[in-house]
């Protein structure tokens, strides 16, 4: 399929010129096209933020919900209709801040969905406060003395939660990003891709160049099935060297959520196609 298939035509995109979000959109379209995902079968779920506007810029079904709440909605969409391709995509503030609790517990469920997080280490839409991933010392109008908190390490946390697919990419490397996107989307189960993305308007520290200088690919012989190795790599932060990018961890022993619950064990049809079982209901009522 051609990536143009996902184009929205003449629309006004609210991102700043030069923002990494544009590349993410482009790469995502290409990945989807190469995987032949039909727009009618794709649901993009997002929260609120600059990143969270992405579903509006890609021809597909859209659930653009509340700030921080994309994952529970995406989970429910996926488990109400496992035939859909579900991508939950939002910003670092949305997913790891407001949505932190869903981030943790959704991983535990392992639904068959892809979770793309635009990690620009800042709150873009609300004009430049620290996000959970902001680096120590990062100054903002709220963090006037610079960020004092330990930056949230989504990759390490996801590995600690034994997520079934954990990756980080830098959008500056588009081919690599596309490749990881494709693997994430085809992965059966929950797949996290933390996407390092420069915010040209509010993050003057972690720029394109900075990311370029401070990231490197995981070693070529790296084995993503080892949780211990994955954690060791995840702990490598820019505070003490370069942050690795690539697929840190996969656990292929896990079934996706919908294969575990009884609802789809004998019948794979989505819930909307089903009818109430009148006989059983009559029987049940009479049992009381």
């Amino acid at each position: 399929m051609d990536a143009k298939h996902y184009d929205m035509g003449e629309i006004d995109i609210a991102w700043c010129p030069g923002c990494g979000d544009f590349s993410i959109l482009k790469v995502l379209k290409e990945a989807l096209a190469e995987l032949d995902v039909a727009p009618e079968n794709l649901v993009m779920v997002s929260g609120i933020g600059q990143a969270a506007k992405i579903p509006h810029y890609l021809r597909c079904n859209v659930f653009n919900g509340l700030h921080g709440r994309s994952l529970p909605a995406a989970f429910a969409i996926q488990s109400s209709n496992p035939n859909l391709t579900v991508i939950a995509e939002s910003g670092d503030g949305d997913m790891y801040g407001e949505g932190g609790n869903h981030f943790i517990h959704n991983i535990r469920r392992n639904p068959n969905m892809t979770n793309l997080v635009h990690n620009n280490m800042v709150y873009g839409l609300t004009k430049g406060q620290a996000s959970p991933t902001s680096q120590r010392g990062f100054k903002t109008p709220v963090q006037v003395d610079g960020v004092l908190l330990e930056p949230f390490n989504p990759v390490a946390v996801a590995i600690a939660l034994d997520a079934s697919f954990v990756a980080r990419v830098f959008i500056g490397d588009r081919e690599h990003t596309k490749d990881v996107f494709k693997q994430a989307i085809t992965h059966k189960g929950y797949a996290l891709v933390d996407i390092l993305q420069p915010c040209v308007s509010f993050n003057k520290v972690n720029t394109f160049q900075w990311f370029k200088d401070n990231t490197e690919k995981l070693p070529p012989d790296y084995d993503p099935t080892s949780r211990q190795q994955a954690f060791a790599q995840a702990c490598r932060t820019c505070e003490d060297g370069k942050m690795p990018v690539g697929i840190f961890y996969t656990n292929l022993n896990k079934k996706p959520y919908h294969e575990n619950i009884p609802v789809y064990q004998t019948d794979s049809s989505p819930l909307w196609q089903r009818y109430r079982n009148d006989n059983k209901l009559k029987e049940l009522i009479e049992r009381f």
Partner: protein
Amino acid sequence: MGKSFSGIRKDVSVVLCGSAGMGVQTVERLLVRIFKQAGYHVFATKEYMSRVRGGMNSVTIRVSSKPVQAEVDRIDVLIPLDKGAIEHVQRRLTGGTLILAEPDYLNDAVKEKCPRCMEVAFTEIAKAIGNKLYSNVVAVGVVGAIFGINPDLLTDFIRKRFSGKEQNVIDENVAAVEKGYEIGNELCEQHQIRMAIEPDSLVNDQILVNGVEAVGLGAIAGGCNFIGAYPMSPSTGLLTFLAKHAREFGIVVEQAEDEIAGVNMAIGAWYAGARAVASTSGGGFALMTEGVSLAGMMESPLVVHLAQRPGPATGLPTRTGQEDLNLALYAGHGEFPRAIFAPGNPQQAFDLTARAFNLAAQYQVPVFILTDQYFVDTYYNTPPFDASAVKVEHHFVETGQAYRRFEITENGISPRGIPGYGKGLVVADSDEHDEAGHITEDLDLRVRMVDKRLSKGRLLEEAVIEPTLWPNEDFKTLVLCWGSTLPIMQEAIAVFGRDDVSLLHFAQVFPLPIDLRQTLEQAETIICLEGNATGQFADLVELHTGISVDEFLLKYNGLNFTVEDVVASLEKMIG
């Protein structure tokens, strides 16, 4: 009829009381079924503390030859299963109360207040059979005997009930009930305490459900196939009910990490074509209110079961109240329409819960079902629900290429598409959006979208469930009530016995009927009965009709109204 001291009775209330973990609830579960099988109308309600062991809980079971669905203060028969039990129900005792108790529970004061108290050494008998835990089953036998229930029915029932257990457990339980029956019989012969109640053949065809089971059955009848919920008393029953029947009815049951996830799951599920409910109580509902607003903006159907308990904050987690009407009315920022049901009895709970799913689907609005701890935990016998009378109305369409989720139509309702069904794309947005669903800052369009959303409120008004006016169309005094208090008010008015007093019960509390004012204008005196301290429903009525209530009957100690409560108040107000 002279046959015994007590003679034939129409309506007896049996109370069991003991600390948590003493098996009060087991006795309740056994007795209600036994009474029903014996052909009696039965009603059982409980009050309990927020703890797993200890404290003091009680169950009131009414057994009757006529339908009964209301709580009474009066205790006809009391079985204290614990030392503190008699004190716990102290104020409900009368000279006529029959107490069957361990010898050492009965001090002189008790004996004086209740001359009809008899000693039964439940624990010793139970120990003799094998374990003191059987004492509650012994009590079941004693009660069975007093009510003259066929002993075969008792033993058969116990045998069936414990059929999954090991043989010696079954045998010992049977022995316990038999021994109890024997003792009960002896007591009856010695003291003429038999309570002969006439069975009603109608009862055989009826079912016995508690409030939350009625809601649960209504949900399944309404096509519910998804629940996102986080445990919270007293709402958890719906989650466990649907979990129990998940496999049979193809229901996705997910215990959410918190209530916020619960409600967002429910909205996501509806988006994908499921029929979802979120179930919670006050504090959890407070957390859901942003999600309620999302449903308002996305024009997503949403059903929320809100089982009320006293607040604020954690309040009294296992008690009852009607304090969250305002919260349900105004939950969520911004402005959007909604509907709120508050069933008064199991039949209404079944009907309205099923209706909630259809209404939500049709008008694409949040619909709330307000119950309370009293209602969800109370058992009623009732004619079997007729699910065939309830259609599952899907109200979604196959989308075409040019599909626009928020198309502005004449009546404000846009055809609802489902992703994956049809060629169209379904775009739902929490921002203000255009007809296609995409984010907009066109401020004229904003106004049209607000108008579109609010116009559905008028449609909901037209679809309103009328309140129940009972018993007479002519009245001087009108008592307004809503939710679970219906049967209590009905019995209280019957007992009060004046034919110029009627009640107007609202099983739908929002919107209110357009012509409500006319009905209220007929009353000389309007009384409003509510389980809260501020008269929330009266405010709503006043806003809607301009008529303010004359008198209030409010209760907010965590317990439900009783028939006696209401009668006494009516006497004071209009007696």
